[in-house]
């Protein structure tokens, strides 16, 4: 009787929460999660139904750890395909097999994927802001349309990647709204380069040339990722990024072959972005999580391998333009000509910037994101309300 009352109470709370999610407080969500897990373990409640509820509650935040529940119940469909042990999983991906979203995966594999893909998505979205600043100043019609299209692509990448992160986060009850809130709440990092100022038109070109060029190197490596949905999505992203790099390269070439003022503007921009690009690929010694990602073949190259690839590609190109690089120690190793020596960026300063959003432009750009996320929450709510009350809006056209 008491159990029935408790269940009835929570169902009532949950029903209200689905309609007006703000009725449920965070401690209530956690309590609800525990109760749901208990019911599932006791076979009193279907996992599918609880997942639907978790999904609807995604705005409130993370609830429970469903992997534990899944494992105990043995409900995963991939049980017949994979022995659910870490060793078997490692062996499976070592043979070059890919993991699909519905396959069983260790908790830490899922969490590493969420961290990687969430950060990637957020970096694409936050990367729109430095270039957006230059759309209204674009000096020709062609440049203006190209820059608009490039920014649109970046947001599109962010949107697609968030869908992957949403799928992976579904067992944790986290959806789009929660993943986007993480940006403005400072719970997810984005690439160091997007914390930096872009004070001239040359910066808009250099972002395309160097940042997108660097991103292509990183993302091309991820094409071999063990997580199949990510690898598939990256095919399209890398193809588009190569257009972006060409757009940036075209701006850079125009400036390099322009007047002294244009060349000076370009040189200043290269000087500004170079140290940030050295940081872009991560520390020389990879951290525990990055090494774990290598083990899981989520990524397939080290930070240093990626940075060396970037240096090999860009140092000769920049010098061929008659531009200099702001690193007096930049040179090829005498014994190993494929290895470039370079000056370390200020790791501590960049780390501080990325972890605490303390870069020169971090807060300005986060304020723009906050305006869309929080300031226009009413408009998202209006869309939901309108669709709920007028199921097919287009029918009234």
């Amino acid at each position, binding site marked *: 009787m008491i159990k029935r009352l408790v269940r009835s109470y929570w169902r009532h709370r949950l029903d209200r929460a689905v309609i007006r999610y703000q009725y449920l407080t965070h401690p209530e969500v956690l309590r609800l999660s525990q109760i749901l897990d208990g019911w599932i373990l006791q076979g009193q409640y279907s996992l599918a139904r609880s997942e639907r509820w978790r999904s609807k509650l995604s705005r409130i935040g993370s609830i429970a750890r469903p992997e534990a529940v899944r494992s105990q119940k043995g409900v995963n469909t991939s049980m017949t395909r994979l022995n659910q042990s870490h060793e078997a999983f490692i062996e499976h991906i070592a043979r070059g097999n890919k993991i699909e979203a519905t396959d069983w995966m260790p908790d830490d594999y899922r969490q590493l994927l969420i961290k990687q893909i969430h950060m990637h998505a957020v970096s694409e979205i936050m990367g729109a802001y430095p270039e957006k600043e230059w759309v*209204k*100043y674009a000096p*020709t019609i062609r440049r203006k349309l190209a820059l*608009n299209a490039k920014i649109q692509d970046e947001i599109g990448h962010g949107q697609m990647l968030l869908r992957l992160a949403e799928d992976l986060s579904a067992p944790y009850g986290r959806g789009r709204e929660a993943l986007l809130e993480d940006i403005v709440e400072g719970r997810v990092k984005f690439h160091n380069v997007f914390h930096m100022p872009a004070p001239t038109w040359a910066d808009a070109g250099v972002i395309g040339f160097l940042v997108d060029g660097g991103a292509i190197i990183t993302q091309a490596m991820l094409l071999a990722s063990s997580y199949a949905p990510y690898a598939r999505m990256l095919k399209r992203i890398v193809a588009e990024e190569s257009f972006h790099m060409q757009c940036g390269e075209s701006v850079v070439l125009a400036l390099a072959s322009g007047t002294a003022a*244009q060349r000076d503007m370009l040189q200043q921009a290269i000087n500004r972005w170079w140290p940030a690009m050295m940081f872009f690929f991560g520390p020389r010694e990879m951290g525990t999580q990055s090494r774990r990602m290598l083990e899981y073949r989520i990524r397939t190259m080290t930070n240093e391998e990626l940075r060396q690839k970037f240096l090999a590609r860009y140092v000769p190109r920049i010098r061929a333009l008659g531009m200099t690089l702001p690193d007096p120690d930049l040179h090829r190793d005498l014994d190993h000509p494929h290895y470039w020596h370079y000056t370390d960026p200020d790791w501590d300063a960049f780390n501080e910037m990325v972890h605490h959003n303390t870069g020169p432009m971090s807060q300005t750009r986060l304020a723009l994101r906050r305006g869309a996320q929080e300031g226009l929450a009413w*408009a998202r709510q209006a*869309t939901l309300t*309108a669709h709920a009350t*007028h199921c097919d809006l287009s029918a009234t056209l």
Partner: protein
Amino acid sequence: MILLSPTQARSIQWLLTSVADDEWIIGHRGSEWLAETPNLEDDLALSSISQDEMGHAQLLYHLIEGLGGPSPDHQVYDRPIDRWHPAGLVTLPRQDWAEWVTRQYFYEVFDEIRRQALDTIPFPSLSSALLSIQREESYHTRYVHTQIQSLAFGGAVAEDHLAQAIAVDWPFIPSLFTWGGDDSTWQSLQSPVLDPEAMKAAFEATVHQQFVMWNIPWPGALGSIAPQGRDQCHNPAMAQVLSEMATVRHIAPESGW
């Protein structure tokens, strides 16, 4: 091949300048919303719309160039403000999201009426351009209809935003119906549907019907069409837009960018 008289060619240049300026400025204003809309999907749609509008402007500036005008880039970056003729509505500085949706809705309704009127001009290059433009505009209309219905049926808060937006935009709507130049420009093309009063009547009929369908209160009769109404755009906000657009280019005006 149809040969235009010098008077007709001049009139078409005037008309197309108004249209192209509207398209360019609304595209430019739209790009100010990049990455700042309520949903990532809105960012994608709005960005496409802005690119389309500026692309249409570029196409029309090319037609003007073919009629003896300057190059499209020159028209965008080097034209003094007193030779620009966008409608006051499209030049309004960025405001609330609901205002942007409403502005786009009014503009799309009007633009369709205007395209139909322009299609009566016997100028094959223009007809071909309009056909290409129409293919893209139909998607814009679908998008803004969905958006405005979200505001109309989206609850009390959204309704408030919508009412305020309509109140802001409504006084600027008559500026849409005028053409660049004086009345003799459109009259010389001998097509009654180019008459600003005819376009205004068609606009009111369409919007009224849709407002009834969407339960949006009718804001009252539109104001009268002021002669030379497009000169309304010669204001500080428009001056700022033009100044911003030319900032980089004018660092090295003779150089490639």
